């Protein structure tokens, strides 16, 4: 007859006790691992900060005139094909960044659009390109180290020869920057790499090089941050001197201009641990498409969980050890193994 439960054997009690111990240990391992990430575990991974010599850009929306010279220069510098959004297809007219467009100027529009940099009945510009985060989500997400952050310049670079095309970087980035070339069977990820390929020729970011008003300024992020704070401290409507091109050396090409009605916030100073591209704007940042981000990066949270659960593979091996021990006791050969049972019977012994 079939019986529903195994007959209790001697030692069942102690074994059951042992099992309970093993299981609660293994079961709570994952639970405590995740719970501990909420407090302060040993494997906690702090949000990274910018390297001291980090390079970046300062984009001042109040200086931008929307000429899009930077968009064209970026296309040229990165050898990217034009993208069309008009019927005549005469000019490169991308509506957003893409696998073939790494930089565009977007426009905020409201009501009658009469006043520049006014939230009501006004308009404003905003640059969209890689922010070169201090603690980039894309670098943390990439399974094959195709996204890397330079330890000196902090530039977030992409290596198509390493990339598997999983597009976790596309999904992970809070700014929606890494983009994939869907129209190609061998598509790559496309994003701004701060023109790192032009540095050898004595160049810097093409977008800053060509900017006629200094709205996009290249330099070390710490210098750009002081420049941004200098501007925020000035009173709106007063006159000040604006550098153009690069803030760190290069020909003197500064000019005098009026100070805008800035939001008192340097975007990128603290967001996700800080970004190397900084932004100033007269219109609230969320209205011009810059997300509200906490000072703690999501990469830090994600890696803290990973390191807590899998650091040194300690927990997996501990659980595997416990499971192996328990499984060894509970696997009955003859159940899984008709052949072995037949052999055992032939030999006249009954294994258990």
């Amino acid at each position, binding site marked *: 007859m079939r019986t529903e439960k195994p007959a209790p054997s001697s030692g069942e009690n102690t074994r059951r006790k042992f099992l309970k111990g093993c299981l609660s240990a293994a079961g709570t391992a994952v639970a405590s691992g995740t719970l501990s990430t909420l407090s302060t575990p040993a494997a906690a991974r702090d949000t990274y900060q910018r390297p001291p010599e980090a390079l970046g850009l300062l984009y001042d929306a109040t200086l931008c005139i929307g000429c899009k010279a930077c968009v064209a220069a970026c296309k040229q510098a990165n050898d990217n094909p034009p993208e069309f959004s008009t019927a005549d297809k005469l000019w490169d007219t991308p509506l957003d960044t893409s696998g073939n467009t790494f930089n565009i100027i977007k426009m905020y529009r409201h009501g009658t659009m009469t006043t520049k940099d006014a939230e009501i009945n006004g308009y404003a510009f905003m640059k969209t390109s890689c922010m070169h985060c201090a603690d980039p989500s894309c670098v943390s997400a990439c399974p094959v180290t195709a996204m890397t952050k330079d330890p000196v310049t902090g530039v977030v670079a992409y290596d198509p020869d390493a990339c598997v095309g999983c597009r976790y970087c596309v999904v992970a980035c*809070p700014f929606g920057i890494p983009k994939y070339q869907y129209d190609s069977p061998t598509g790559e990820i496309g994003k701004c790499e701060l023109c790192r390929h032009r540095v050898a020729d004595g160049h810097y970011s093409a977008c800053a090089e060509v900017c006629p008003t200094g709205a996009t300024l290249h330099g070390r992020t710490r210098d750009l941050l002081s420049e941004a704070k200098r501007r925020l401290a000035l009173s709106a409507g007063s006159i000040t001197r604006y550098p153009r091109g690069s803030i760190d050396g290069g020909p003197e090409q500064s000019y005098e201009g009026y100070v805008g009605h800035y939001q008192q916030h340097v975007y990128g100073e603290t967001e996700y641990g800080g970004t190397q591209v900084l932004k100033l704007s007269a219109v609230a940042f969320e209205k011009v498409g810059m997300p509200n981000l906490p000072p703690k990066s999501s990469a830090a949270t994600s890696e803290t969980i990973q390191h807590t659960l899998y650091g040194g593979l300690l927990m997996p091996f501990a659980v595997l050890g416990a499971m192996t021990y328990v499984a060894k006791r509970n696997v009955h050969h003859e159940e899984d193994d008709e052949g072995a049972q037949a052999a055992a019977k032939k030999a006249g012994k009954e294994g258990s």
Partner: protein
Amino acid sequence: MSTQQHARPAPVGGSLLNATTLVCGVLIAVMATIILVRLIFGLGATTNLNDGYSWGAWVVVDVFIGSALACGGFSVALLVYIFNKGQYHPLVRPALLGSLFGYTLAGAAITFDLGRWWNFWHIFWPGYFNVNSVMFEVAACIMLYIIVMWIEFSPVFLEKLGLHEAHRKLSKLLFFFIALGIVLPMMHQASLGTMLVVMGGQVNPLWQTPMQPLIYLLSAIILGYGVVLFESCVAASAYRRQVEISMLNPMARVMLGIMGFYLLVRFADLIARGVLGQAFQPTFIALSFWIENACFIAPFLLIRSVEARRNPARLFLAGVAVMLGGILLRLNGFLIAFDTGPGWTYFPSVPELLVTIGIFAAEVLGYIVITRRFPVLPREEAYAQPTHS
């Protein structure tokens, strides 16, 4: 041991050529054609993927949901080999078979979704792989688990081929692969939840929490039992066999217990983070949240009592509800409540859906071929007349 008296697994037998297998064959052929087009012309030619929703049906449904629905083998092994509930042993092989196909096909599915698939080996190559990446952990673990499952399942083929000696040697080591087969899915099913964490504020707070690994792991175990309920009922109906109520009844009770704990964790987390209010806003996302959780609550109404659990229809419905809940948990986090900014929308294209359907067809066809030709399901006569005295 008394567990020996269970019905031994035996091939179901019968023809492999019938309406179901023919339909599956056609669907698989359609899928193969679409994959060929994708490989020649790219993802844009076959999918509706865009940079706002770069992960579509092929990732979220085929891999994330597909692998979770393939947790039957893991959940049943946990019960039989770790909790030492030998009475469920006849469920092991069929559950493992479902898992084997689910995972193998999920692994295949991710390959043609990769934009640069010829570099796939980088994930396992020191010097390329990034241990900080959740994706790395998931990919490496799933690959290993697929290999482990084929080893776990290989006694079925060895039995059929009469390789008793190899079979005997393998079974001495089987306990280790069984242990691996429990630890590996624990790891990557948890990490599939962690996958959401790096996406930050793009994921609605109802699904964005550092507790995701625990939530995903528990839901995967529950899903495993849900799928076994579903599969057992479907297999019994299709092969005109008895439903294994004596095993499904207590197993469903175990499932309810874990599900109670799951709901506790899920809602305690929402309350602790102070975001439960989001669930009471008049939004489509809030509705989706409640449908998801209603699916996990419904089985408590359907199969709460021992009597209710004797009813195959109720067991089947509970299994379906649990599967839907698990599917929605994943769809919500990765697609429905994933917001990358204004202007982006995604709904799978017809070719995307046909590939996803083709993958499930391949699973069904594989299940039919193997159960008809190899010893997987318990021998039916055992129910009618005891073979052992």
